[in-house]
């Protein structure tokens, strides 16, 4: 590792070119089972699953190193990346055919063990007009028009007459669309996977954990729109490590884990 280490120190001193591509693959599961818009192995199908990630850091030999996102429209800008596990088929009635399960970035070439990122759209980009915004924020199906921002995550599962969906985004926003005044509930989860090995492992979102605590057998499809009055949000917010009352991060999101390659 010695030559690589030297390289990374040199980069701290100001070089910008000596980085290598790093892909971070993502996967969605429901417990041990796969799940998709038409895949009901778990007993459920997806109705939706899309989310933004940003502020990605890898744990290097000398501490955390930011992953520079590679502009890759329509999925990524240098600020934020969109992941999309729905293909518009089956129960994914509001979906689109295109999918994306990887975040593409660059970082100084070295080994990394440990990954950290936020779910959401950075505040300075969250209140733009989707009709003028650059990809991946041009997507009207991720925009949350009435809250003046974006949905950071939309996820849902269903079977027969039961199911649950969540739309996560900043709430209790102030000002107006024309003159935004920020949001009192940020609602941007933190994902922290200390044993994630870059280049080998996969980030898994386990929907069984995300929807743990939701009654999926009561014959009543439920939902959470991050709305402050909705008690239905308490369980998924807990799984995302968010304090439902304040929108602050209380702990890393338990619904995400690293699937080890070995």
């Amino acid at each position, binding site marked *: 590792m010695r030559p690589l280490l030297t390289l990374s120190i040199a980069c701290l001193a100001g070089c910008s070119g000596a980085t290598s591509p790093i892909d971070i693959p993502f996967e969605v599961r429901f417990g041990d089972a796969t799940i998709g818009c038409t895949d009901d192995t778990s007993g459920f199908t997806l109705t939706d699953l899309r989310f933004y990630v940003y502020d990605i850091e890898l744990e290097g030999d000398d501490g955390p190193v930011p992953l520079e996102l590679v502009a890759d429209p329509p999925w990524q800008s240098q600020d934020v990346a969109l992941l999309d596990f729905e293909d518009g088929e089956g129960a994914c*009635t*509001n*979906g*689109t055919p295109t999918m994306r399960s990887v975040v593409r970035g660059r970082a100084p070439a070295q080994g990394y063990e440990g990954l950290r990122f936020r779910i959401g759209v950075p505040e300075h980009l969250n209140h733009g*007009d*989707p*009709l*003028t915004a650059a990809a991946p924020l*041009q*997507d*009207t*199906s991720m*925009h949350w*028009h*009435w*809250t*003046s921002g974006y949905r950071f995550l939309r996820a849902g599962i269903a079977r027969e007459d039961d199911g649950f969906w969540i*739309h996560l985004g900043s*709430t*209790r*926003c*102030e*000002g*107006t*669309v*024309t003159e935004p005044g920020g949001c009192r*509930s940020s609602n941007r989860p933190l994902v922290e996977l200390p044993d994630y090995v870059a280049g080998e492992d996969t980030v898994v979102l386990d929907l069984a954990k995300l929807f743990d605590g939701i009654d999926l057998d009561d014959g009543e499809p439920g*939902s959470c*729109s991050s*709305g*402050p*009055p909705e008690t239905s949000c308490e369980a998924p917010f807990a799984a995302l490590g968010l304090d439902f009352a304040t929108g602050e991060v209380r702990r890393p999101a338990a619904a995400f884990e690293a699937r080890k390659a070995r």
Partner: protein
Amino acid sequence: MRPFAVAAAAVALAAAAGVAALLVAGREGYEWTLPAGVPPPPVPDDNPMSAAKVELGRRLFYDTRLSVNGSMACATCHRQELAFTDGRARSIGATGEVHPRGAMTLANAGYASRLTWANPLLDTLEVQALTPLFGDDPVEMGMAGREADIVELVRSDPWYRAAFEEAFPSDAKPWSTLNVVRAIAAFVRTIVSFDSPYDRYLRGDESALSPSAVRGMQLFFSERLECFHCHGGFNFTDSSTHANAIVTPFGFHNNGLYNIGSTGAYPPDNTGLHDITGERRDMGRFKAPTLRNVAVTAPYMHDGSMRTLDEVVEHYRRGGRLVEDGPYAGDGRRNPYKSAFVRGFELTAEEKMDLIAFLASLTDLSLLTNPRYADPCRATSNLAENCVSRHDQYVSRK
């Protein structure tokens, strides 16, 4: 409804006598048709008005191809003959989802300082238009993620292709969703209503209002009934602004419709400002809608839970609604978050008739019938045949 019929006849007479509205020149040479003394609505700097843009917006407003299955246009929930409402308690989207609230009138929507029933964030028509077009909770027109289809439509349809170039002359590629929204907003801004019998009465035509409506007007503006505190000003709502306004007031009020279990709660899918802020004190606070054309915009309240103006007046007379049984049972009069202006009042049967006669005098027949707001494809023009055949082709292709 005798007083209303008399007032309507007065409108027709006044029109026949040639009482012409004055033209007010706005920015970019657009000429607003507004009575003297009425300022134009505010216009965003990045979406100046032009006749070409308004005409384009009108066509888009009536085009069902802007919905996911070709079944509805903006005009489906905003019908001109109903003052741009849809007559339903709660509107229904293209795929059949029922909206928690009813479609609001578009009359003078350009003057609304905040749009929709209870959203302090929504302050321009351009942004509001995104919700019906792209919203999916509930689905309204259902175009989320289908921006490319919209662009394809306006670029490939020969009429649109040329009309976008004319309406957005400085854009190299004017066929964008952004410009669709801008054109629709420009058209909606022109839907103004200042020609009711009440307006004519204010302009000096004493015959425009019946004696009953005049008595009703006095009741409306009285401290006994308090109606005008929330439904005041030139647009009969305290959430109004205009191009020359120095401040932009807006207000949200709990009027005692519900008080579930005596906790102050409203039905959970419809808590008003509280939906946005999460603050308990905002429970049940909704915008006071304009009362212009209110006689043709039934049913009433955000959830359409009152069928007639008689019911509405009775509700305010009582100072809140008593829901006797069912899941929403409770006495709205005792809602702890209720506006101080909704405290109830005495009202004789004759006074109630007078008040309703006054409310009916706010109906602007020119708004309901003016061909400039009508579907250009249904008007007798060269465009009409063209519109129908292209629409059929589009729907059969889907």
